């Protein structure tokens, strides 16, 4: 997903108060991952295999049952909700995955797997998918999960008036045309070709809910490992083990208690004092402290990114030489150290690093002040002064702006950093130069969200209407319709080359999610996924007290 992971990039040690996070998260609409459509064939091939009982028990010792797992989550507030298909705050994410599951899942390498509620998802044609459900899975109230529930679930997301985060991702689906073929088989017709459907179905806001389901305060009945017992928005939730859970042996805890924390100091203290067993978003500066006290940190390198966004149709960035100059001003390695305390990996102004179609052939951009100066001179923009808009949203958004401003001085460029409180108000997406944040996701999914004329969050106003890059949208449509992976990858490479040379993003690095936990807890392993604590211990199923 986008917002959560980027917002969870506690890479610079800034603590992130929840409410800003909520504002930021609610702004973004849907969440889908990488992997690319290549996995499709694999999915069908694996169809029918039985689910693995534990996804990644890499830790020592065999799982034991029992105990109350206490998790402290950064952020949240009165806006907290409990919905199997929607989130506003980070604690909402932590709670959603305890009770609800998706048809497909992402593994820790962010590749699609058919370990979810569907046995297989097959593309019958570029515009039609068939979903075959795993048989005999029961909801927490004992009702068997059937095709009707899947149809209800997808239609609930696809109804605009419901205002769910996943709505934008259903644009290509013919929601009204969903058809029950038999008790456990659903046909999903598409309005337009879309090879990213499996990724969409694996994104965590596409939880499967029973027919007639409604959000809290209605009863929260999912197929997940834990059943909600009590919930107070802004404070805490308690969930009990689902005795009827379909994966044999799992889960292990008796109860899961999720508590909101407005401040990371309190979170770290609670972890040190033994009042919680795990926490999200450990500040990078606290990693050493926590480890020196025999506690553990879980550092997950994700594909989350915080870009500098140049609007390609607004001065001075309507001149590509200026855009190139800005990119050459950036000292990426220094930024990783200064903004992310070293917890991050180098980026090359491109997103979706885990996508099989990620273009690694393009040369790595490095700082070149002389070249930047000469480009600015050619463009008649020597001694340029620009405003850079940012906000205390996701971690790193402000420090990226200030670090860039100081680096730009070397090239004689004056950058005035403007920290705007109500950033996602009327001016958002209308700014010439701004900072934003995104999470891990597949390339084509990301393009749909941010790099098309129709995208809901297109900060850079890409692609151009004429000239280099104006064929971007047609390449995108071809890539979505491509049934051949090598063809799709080739098209993606071409698209990325256009963005690399003419686009409006400066992407210095990808961030990491850093979480902390007690050594009592076994089963955690780093994940490239979008949610903290390796998708919250895979929905609290694959972790236990040792």
């Amino acid at each position, binding site marked *: 997903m986008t917002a959560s992971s980027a917002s969870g990039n506690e890479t610079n040690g800034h603590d992130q108060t929840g409410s800003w996070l909520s*504002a930021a998260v609610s702004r973004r609409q849907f969440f889908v991952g990488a992997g690319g459509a290549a996995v499709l064939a694999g999915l069908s091939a694996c169809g029918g295999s039985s689910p693995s009982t534990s996804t990644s028990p890499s830790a020592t010792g065999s799982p034991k049952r029992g105990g109350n797992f206490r998790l*402290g989550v950064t952020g949240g507030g009165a*806006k907290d909700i409990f919905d199997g298909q929607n989130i506003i705050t980070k604690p909402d994410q932590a709670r959603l995955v305890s009770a609800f599951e998706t048809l497909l899942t992402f593994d820790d390498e962010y590749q699609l797997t058919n370990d979810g509620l569907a046995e297989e998802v097959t593309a019958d044609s570029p515009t039609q998918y068939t979903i075959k459900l795993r048989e005999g899975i029961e909801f927490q109230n004992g009702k068997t999960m059937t095709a009707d529930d899947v149809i209800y679930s997808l239609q609930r997301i696809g109804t605009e008036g419901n205002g769910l985060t996943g709505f934008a991702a259903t644009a290509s689906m013919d929601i009204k045309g969903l058809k029950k073929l038999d008790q456990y088989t659903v046909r999903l017709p598409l309005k337009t070709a879309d090879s990213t459907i499996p990724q969409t179905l694996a994104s965590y806001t596409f939880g499967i809910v029973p027919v007639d389901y409604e959000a809290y305060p209605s009863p929260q009945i999912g197929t997940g490992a834990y059943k909600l017992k009590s919930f107070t928005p802004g*404070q805490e939730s308690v969930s009990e083990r689902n005795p009827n859970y379909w994966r044999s042996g799992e889960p292990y805890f008796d109860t899961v208690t999720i508590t909101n924390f*407005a401040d990371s*100091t309190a979170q770290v203290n609670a972890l*040190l004092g033994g009042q919680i067993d795990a926490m999200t978003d450990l500040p990078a500066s606290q990693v050493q402290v926590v480890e020196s006290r025999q506690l553990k940190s879980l550092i997950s390198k994700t594909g989350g990114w915080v870009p500098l966004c140049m609007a390609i149709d607004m001065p001075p960035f309507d001149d590509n030489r200026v855009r190139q100059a800005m990119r050459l001003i950036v000292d990426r390695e220094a930024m990783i150290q200064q903004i992310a305390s070293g917890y991050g990996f180098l980026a090359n102004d491109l997103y979706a690093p885990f996508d099989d179609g990620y273009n690694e052939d393009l040369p790595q951009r490095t700082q070149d002040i002389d070249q930047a100066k000469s480009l600015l001179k050619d463009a008649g923009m020597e001694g340029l002064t620009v405003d850079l808009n940012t906000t205390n949203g996701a971690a790193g958004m402000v420090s990226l702006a200030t670090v860039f401003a100081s680096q730009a001085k070397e090239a004689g460029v004056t950058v005035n950093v403007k920290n705007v409180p109500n950033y996602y108000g009327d001016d958002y997406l209308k700014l010439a130069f701004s900072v934003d944040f995104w999470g891990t996701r597949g390339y084509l999914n990301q393009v749909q969200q941010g790099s098309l004329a129709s995208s809901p969050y297109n900060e850079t106003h890409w692609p151009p209407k004429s000239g280099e890059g104006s064929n971007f949208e047609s390449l995108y449509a071809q890539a979505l319709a491509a049934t051949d992976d090598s063809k799709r990858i080739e098209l993606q490479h071409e698209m990325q080359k256009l963005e690399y040379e003419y686009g409006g993003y400066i992407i210095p690095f990808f961030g990491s999610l850093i979480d902390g936990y007690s050594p009592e807890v076994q089963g955690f392993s780093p994940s490239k996924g979008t949610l903290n604590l390796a998708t919250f211990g895979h929905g609290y199923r694959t972790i236990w007290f040792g």
Partner: protein
Amino acid sequence: MRWLRQGGIAGFIIRRLMLGVLVLVLVSILVFAATQALGDPARAILGRDATPASLAALRAELNLDQSVLGQYFSWAGGLLQGDLGNSLAAQQPVTELLGSRLVNSSVLVLCAAVISIPLSIAIGSWAALRREKAFDTVSSSVMLVLAALPEFVVAVLLVMLFATTVLQVLPAISPVSPGQRPWQVPEVLVLPTATLVLAVAPYVARIMRASMVEVLESDYVEMARLKGLPERTVLIRHALPNAIGPVFQVIAINLAYLAGGVVVIEYVFNYSGIGSALQDAVVNQDLPVVQALAMLIAGVYVVLNLLADVATILVTPRLRTRL
């Protein structure tokens, strides 16, 4: 109105109460005006997700379709009837949202008051009696240091000392589960209360010492001593009542400050009180909650100041007899 100007202590209280009501009315106008200054609150609240339908619905809920005066009166009228409206963020009545938080905050402030007031009066008086001796020097320096430390530093130091680094005898955070009351989990109150006591006591103790020093040098205390009254009687009957008058004012200001300003404590200890609710509401632009809390905190200020004034008058014969 003549009876109001006389009427002894009762008349005084009634006059002050009327003044307090006036202050609250003025505050309510200010709070309301501040909400108006946001421009169209409905647009501010909904931000970029605003649709014409949702804007219209919210405007109706906030009574924005009425005239400004009408809006004020319908809000103030609701306030008087205890109807604080619905929280926009939580979609539930403000009273429900804030009820348990209010209890939590009150319990914390009450604990802090019950411990810090007698303690600081005792320390201040004792320091005045032992003026420039060891106890006075030590306590004065310690109080000065404590007064200079921000609360969160005190809180973090206490947590390190008693909960995480040095000893692990007390909880590092103070969760009060929904449905629980703080007194059901008294151990979580220890560190937040201690922090507040350390934050408040220095001010009160220092003013108590100064006031006591002055009184001990006065003619009537000398007279009492010369009369041969036991020192105990001199102190408790003659010196203390006269010295404590100015202290009540400082106590009132400090307690009022606690009522509105314990956000830091709530953050450090993850204690769910009204301070963090106010912060959350401001960020969410949750106007009904902000308005309710602003009025509540203003009310606490008015009431505490009134109590302090009454207490001062009751213990000060000169003021008492002038009424």
